[in-house]
């Protein structure tokens, strides 16, 4: 296996965006640049499926590793994947083409530039999930901000500039600390290579500070309470495709970071900070669910529900149990699908009515029955009904949490009741009831491309709800190895003390 398949995955969308850049930007060319982008992203999706096919889930070490010297003696361009990262790559390559299909109706100006931004951010996000060097990771992780900043700032709604800056300010503050931490790791351990760092470990006395530095960056991106307030604003102002990328993939980079770096590099600190994470996660689950209940704006409601769902993820990761971590990974993938789908759903009616206020709707089912069906599927996915992917993730997380702490699991479980309340209430107010707004009567049901997008999201949500084995199988060995490594480290640390 000498073909650099991971680098191809990263570079393909970037190369595609070059092609689009050099296309003429008159009106007719818009369509063709869309087709180029779609073709590139679909090719990338097929390539990643092939990668999943040749990936061997029974090995715990990293596969398809590429190692090139970059800044000699300092930083290597080192990438590779294991059972945890491959699924996030798949999620990225799966969501991107759907975003590109959706741009027709949602993006009115500078379509070409929008496509370039989406493709570039795809490249960067894939890069995040396969970096095996902290510096490379940092570059991809922060680079991912730039296209998203532009997507919100240029194609967003009325308050786009405020939201874009808020987004940038929050995320940047966290990242600066992470950068400092990465530099200090280099001075402490002499390398930024993740695999080597896993082997040699980081001295326990530095771990707490370093962990906090990484945490500040990840907590903002997750987002965890109380640094979550950028998310509702960013979602509300972002165009549909932007919201989808943000909710489906960008938020997952932080969860991935927790698993790969916080647990992997700083096991001692991770154990130490469990109470902090648990408390913040519980607040995220209960608090934001209650806030979501009272929202009047559909996008804000879904944004707040994202915070609650990500609360489950952070909870599961820091249980350090097989079920908890596998559940968290599953929950992230599932939330990637469900939240993407919900934002697409909001986009569909926003395009027709130009409002996101819940009380402007009502009675949509009689006008758009097809839409009502798919929206119901996604609502149930968000509620975590058994038979949807949402259930498997939440169930495993709570099962893992239960092992660690009874009370935390009890409180977290109340989030499941609240989720049902706010999602079903939203659905009822938008879809059911009598039509009170005449504009609703003028809406037309899903067109072909919308149906394709929504059903291709609905299918995996149901399929993996009934048969999650393909995903759980892929992650099992890697997660197991992570936990073993974590426990060994802890054991060594206690011996030394």
């Amino acid at each position: 296996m000498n073909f650099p398949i991971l680098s191809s995955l990263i570079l393909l969308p970037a190369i595609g965006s070059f092609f689009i850049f050099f296309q003429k930007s008159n009106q007719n060319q818009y369509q063709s640049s869309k087709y180029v982008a779609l073709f590139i992203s679909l090719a990338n999706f097929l390539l990643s499926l092939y990668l999943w096919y040749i990936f061997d889930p029974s090995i715990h070490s990293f596969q398809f590793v590429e190692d090139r010297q970059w800044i000699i003696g300092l930083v290597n361009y080192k990438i590779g994947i294991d059972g945890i990262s491959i699924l996030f790559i798949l999620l990225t390559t799966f969501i991107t083409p759907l975003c590109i299909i959706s741009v027709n109706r949602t993006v009115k100006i500078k379509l070409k530039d929008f496509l370039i931004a989406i493709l570039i951010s795809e490249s960067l996000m894939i890069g995040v999930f396969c970096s095996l060097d902290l510096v490379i990771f940092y570059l991809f992780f922060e680079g991912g901000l730039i296209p998203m900043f532009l997507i919100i700032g240029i194609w967003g709604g009325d308050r786009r500039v405020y939201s874009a800056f808020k987004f940038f300010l929050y995320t940047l503050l966290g990242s600066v600390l992470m950068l400092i931490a990465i530099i200090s790791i280099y001075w402490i351990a002499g390398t930024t290579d993740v695999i080597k760092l896993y082997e040699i470990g980081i001295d326990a006395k530095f771990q707490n500070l370093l962990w906090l530095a990484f945490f500040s960056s990840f907590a903002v991106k997750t987002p965890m309470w109380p640094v979550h307030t950028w998310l509702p604003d960013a979602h509300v102002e972002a165009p549909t495709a932007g919201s989808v990328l943000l909710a489906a993939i960008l938020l997952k980079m932080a969860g991935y970071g927790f698993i790969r770096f916080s647990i992997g590099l700083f096991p001692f600190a991770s154990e130490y900070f469990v109470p902090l994470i648990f408390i913040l996660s519980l607040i995220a689950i209960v608090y934001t669910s209650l806030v979501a209940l009272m929202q009047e704006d559909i996008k804000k409601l879904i944004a707040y529900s994202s915070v609650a769902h990500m609360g489950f993820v952070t909870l599961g990761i820091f249980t350090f149990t097989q079920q908890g971590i596998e559940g968290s990974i599953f929950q992230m993938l599932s939330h990637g699908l469900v939240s993407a789908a919900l934002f697409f759903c909001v986009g569909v009616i926003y395009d027709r009515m130009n409002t996101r206020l819940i009380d402007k709707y009502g009675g949509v089912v009689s006008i758009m029955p097809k839409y009502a069906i798919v929206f119901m599927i996604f609502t149930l996915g968000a509620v975590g009904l058994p038979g949807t992917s949402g259930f498997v993730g939440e169930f495993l997380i709570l099962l893992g949490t239960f092992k660690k702490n009874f009370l935390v699991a009890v409180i977290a479980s109340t989030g499941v009741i609240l989720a049902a309340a706010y999602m079903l209430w939203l659905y009822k107010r938008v879809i059911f009831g009598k039509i009170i707004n005449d504009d609703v009567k003028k809406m037309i049901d899903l067109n072909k491309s919308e149906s394709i997008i929504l059903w291709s999201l609905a299918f995996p949500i149901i399929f993996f709800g009934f048969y999650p084995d393909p995903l759980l199988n892929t992650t099992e060995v890697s997660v197991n190895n992570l936990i073993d490594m974590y426990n060994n480290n802890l054991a060594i640390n206690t011996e030394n003390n």
Partner: protein
Amino acid sequence: MEYFLIFLPLIGAIISGFFGKIIGHRNSEIITSAFVSISTILSIFIFYNVIENNYENNLIISTWINSGSLNVNWAIKIDTLSSVMLVVVTLISSLVHIYSIGYMSHDPHRSRFMSYLSLFTFAMLTLVTSDNFLQLFFGWEGVGLCSYFLIGFWYKKKSANAAAIKAFIVNRVGDFGFALGIFLIFYIFGSVNYNEVFDQIPKFLDNKIKFLGLDFNSIDLICILLFVGAMGKSAQFLLHTWLPDAMEGPTPVSALIHAATMVTAGVFLVVRCSYIFEYSNLALNLITIVGMTTAFFAASVALVQNDIKKIIAYSTCSQLGYMFFATGVGAYNVAIFHLFTHAFFKALLFLGSGSVIHSFKNEQDITNMGGSWRKMPYTWILMIIGTLALTGFPFLSGYYSKDAIIEFAYLKGNTSGYFAAGVGILTAFLTSIYSWRLIFKTFHGNYNNKNVDINSIHESPSIMLIPLILLSIGAILAGIIFKDLFIGNNSSYLFWQESIKFLEPLSKDHPPFWILYFTPFLVVISIPISHYVFLKNTKILDSLIESNKSLYKFLQNKWYFDEAYDFMFVKPAKKIGIFFWKIIDEKTINKFGPDGISKVIKNFSIRAVKLQSGFIYQYAFIMLLGFSILLTFFIIQ
């Protein structure tokens, strides 16, 4: 064969749900009804096989969730208990399907309706044939979902939507307990498969678990948590508020879901877990208390309601209470027997009331009915059969099952048992009164409806009557035929075998003579009493209401549960939500966080800008100032 049994309703649901428009309403109705009917035949065949050959089977369909030590399969488990439930579910379901063809014949969304009914049947079948707690939970939530869809089927009605959401969320509160129970089971036994869990129970009797600094016996805790789930689904006291509201759904739904099958899932759960519950006296006593409270509470409310469906809904609630206290005194088989007979007569009553509502043009208030028995004689007779069976009139099915519950409660010989028996007898009397009140007000006396002309009152079409007649046969005969099989002296090892665990064999004593005859006597005597009070001399009733106004109001408002819950949970949740959002998120985090920081920077830069005024004399002045300060500094040094 089992595969066909389970999956045919699902296939029917998919066909009529997604292709209903293409194949037409009539075809959807035929396909779904036919598929469920085939399932019925198969389950009767399996039931026969179980009786005759002790047939048992545990098919694994595929793996479901596989993570670390958690291994869960999709499975079909056939034993005595599940075979009984299969018969109940598929039989009632197929009759309701057929009845719905007539009842819903004017509805523009009939194929969607049929699809939901079949989907519900499928979910219910996965629930009863599960071999592990997780698939049980899947079916559990699945039936809840279908119930949500069907209650809110007439989506333009505001009250229907509200009732649907209420049902789902109150059930979720129960499921919260249920889910915690499953977590605890996995935590202690390392498995969620029935067999693996049940085998290990005796080893863990003294296992303790710490919660909030207190030690709990894990078996007790598991049982209580599971029972909380059962309370939600079976609308037991405190979690019952959704069931009466659920009557917003079309009547066939009430018959199938909210009388015969879904609401009995809680009873099924307790019986299925008899292996655990047998070891927890605490939980059993709790079940007895909750069961008899529900039985009495619901019957008391049913006495004064005027909505025909709500009366039957409260009656269902009350009968479920009977089933629970039967399990609480350890008479699991009697509980299932009552579940079995109840399915027939309660479905009969609901479908019969549907027939009444149909001909009164959707009128549900019994004070607007009356005097109509000549116009719909079949419905009248069938409703009377249902009522007799429900009240436990001698030799009809309810007589055998309900009296057996009271007897076994008495024979249990402890305080809660005696108490339950007493409440059971009292409730049986109340049941009889409210049931006859319904019959007399609906069919007898003066015709009170101003909107519908009496001559337009008509009998329902035969497609609705035939299912009713079949159910009435069940309501008459189910008791006498299956009495020995289900609750006979040797039934526990001849029929139930491994499917129910009896730690101590059920008492074979006979209760005292008066108990055997007292309840039937009350039941029979209540007929003339209610005839007199509700028809002949209504003044007595009026003066009784007048003198006990506050009690009457208390009952009519259903003990003020809805108001209390609204005050305690719904309003505070909304207020807290607004507080978190407006005060904490926006006025605290945002104000001092990002907005604050940007404001500080902005202010700072505005000041910085002011310094650079562009006037040379200002710069010169500042330079001079700085120079003199420096100079002073050096001189002092």
